[in-house]
């Protein structure tokens, strides 16, 4: 089985990059290759110029990964876990930074609690903290908000955006497309191990998707040559996919001209979900 096929990507330093795709598209495999958790049969990957195989020490030192699975070592407390993780990266006394990370992730009160005693959301916070102990310039977040409550989600994004502003490169995979739309400046969409789309978030929204217009009129037929594509119809209620705002203008003019009264109208702007569905062919 080929998990990744001809994937060629470059993420610029300081970018907030999104990696999207349906389950099994190869997102985690790609991250695992970059992180050295899996070996690619062919091709290469590098973190800030350091090859992940031949120069793995430098590559891994510059990378922080928040894994998708909620994993933890049940033998240790939160502080012990973070101290041990710092040591793995060659940092012997790291308490000041550990305290700061714990503060930002609201973990300070749980510093001496055993990992087993933490809730799922708290364990997720520790995973994020573990990825940050060595202040990596590149941070990969693999589904960081899966199963996490709203409060943590907001706190986490605040913290990650701050890291991004401070110059950290962020690579994010998520199933919550609104999160990718809100935070990522550029997005790659994977489908069956291949890059199906790669562009800035704005361009993707522009090129793949139009606005959706919900229209309720007093009759069951639209005038001839009405712009847009009818997605669904229920009596006098239509859902139309509009290419751009000029089409909306034309539609309103045609309705006026035909003397059709608008009972109700709602215009929804394009979102990443439309792009995702189109690109992944769902």
């Amino acid at each position, binding site marked *: 089985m080929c998990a990744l096929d001809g994937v060629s990507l470059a993420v610029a330093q300081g970018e907030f990059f999104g990696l999207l795709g349906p389950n099994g598209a190869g997102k985690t495999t790609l991250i695992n290759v970059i992180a050295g*958790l899996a070996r690619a049969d062919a091709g290469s990957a590098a973190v800030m110029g350091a090859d992940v195989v031949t120069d793995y*020490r430098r590559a*891994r030192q510059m990378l922080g990964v928040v894994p998708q699975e909620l*994993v933890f*070592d049940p*033998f240790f407390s939160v502080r012990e876990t973070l101290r041990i993780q710092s*040591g793995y*990266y060659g940092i012997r006394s790291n308490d000041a930074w550990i305290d700061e990370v714990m503060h930002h992730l609201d973990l300070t009160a749980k510093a001496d609690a055993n990992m087993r005693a933490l809730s799922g959301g708290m364990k997720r916070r520790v995973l994020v903290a573990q990825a940050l102990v060595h202040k990596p310039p590149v941070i990969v977040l693999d589904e960081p908000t899966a199963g996490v409550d709203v409060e943590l989600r907001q706190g986490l994004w605040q913290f990650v955006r701050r890291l991004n502003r401070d110059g950290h490169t962020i690579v994010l995979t998520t199933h919550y497309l609104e999160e990718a739309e809100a935070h990522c400046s550029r997005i790659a969409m994977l489908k069956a191990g291949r890059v199906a789309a790669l562009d800035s978030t704005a361009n993707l929204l522009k090129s793949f998707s139009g606005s959706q217009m919900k229209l309720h009129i007093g009759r069951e037929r639209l005038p001839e040559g009405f712009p847009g594509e009818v997605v669904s119809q229920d009596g006098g209620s239509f859902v139309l996919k509009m290419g751009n705002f000029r089409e909306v203008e034309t539609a309103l003019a045609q309705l006026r001209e035909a003397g059709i009264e608008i009972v109700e109208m709602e215009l929804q702007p394009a979102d990443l979900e439309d792009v995702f569905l189109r690109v992944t062919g769902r």
Partner: protein
Amino acid sequence: MTGFRTLFYKEMLRFWKVSVQTVAAPVLTALLYLVIFGRALEGRLAAFAGIDYAAFLVPGLVMMSVLQNAFANSSSSLMQSKITGNIVFVLLPPISYLEFFCAYVLAAIVRGLVVGAGVMLVTVWFVDLRLEAPLWTLAFGLASAALAGALGLIAGIFSEKVDQLAAFQNFVILPLTMLAGVFYSVHALPEPWRRLSHFNPFFYMVDGFRYGFFAVGDLSPWLSLAIVAASVFFVSLVCVLLLKSGYGLRN
């Protein structure tokens, strides 16, 4: 080096935090062996001339504990980390495969020797034990714990499930330990068992270790040490190559 030191420290902390299970329990098991077998087989099994059977038994029990616990330490730690997924915390940082190997095996040696020392401490009250050549005891103790630790790592690398590891432990380590002359001198065995015992590397460890206590053995300690050292080298090489390839860990 900090990566190696931290991994070694973490491995030590891991077994020390559950020392009742990892140290006290095997010491108690060895004591029970001594009480039951030492008394039940007293005078029935041939040991070395002039040496009380219970005294003969103690070094064997110590070595058995060293081997089993060194193996258990590296194998169960790696296995648990693989099953729970927290192995990523060790695989993500810039820790080389050699540092990985040394940290796990060194922690296994420490656990093996701590349990071995514990067994000696509690059994010494029941038998009159001499330590004629302590350097031999130390050399065989260290080498044997290293071999078992490296074997444990290999078992952990290959095992995907707990029952696979249990099979390795029950069908390989336990028989090799039990048939290594812990409870008897191989000279007392009939053929072909006596000859077959010589194919068991654990036999040389037990015999060499016992030589350190009584300055008497079934074989020359130099021959035993050479065979044990060769085994340690071969098993370590296999283990290091497996770690280098990433087999069972980075896939």
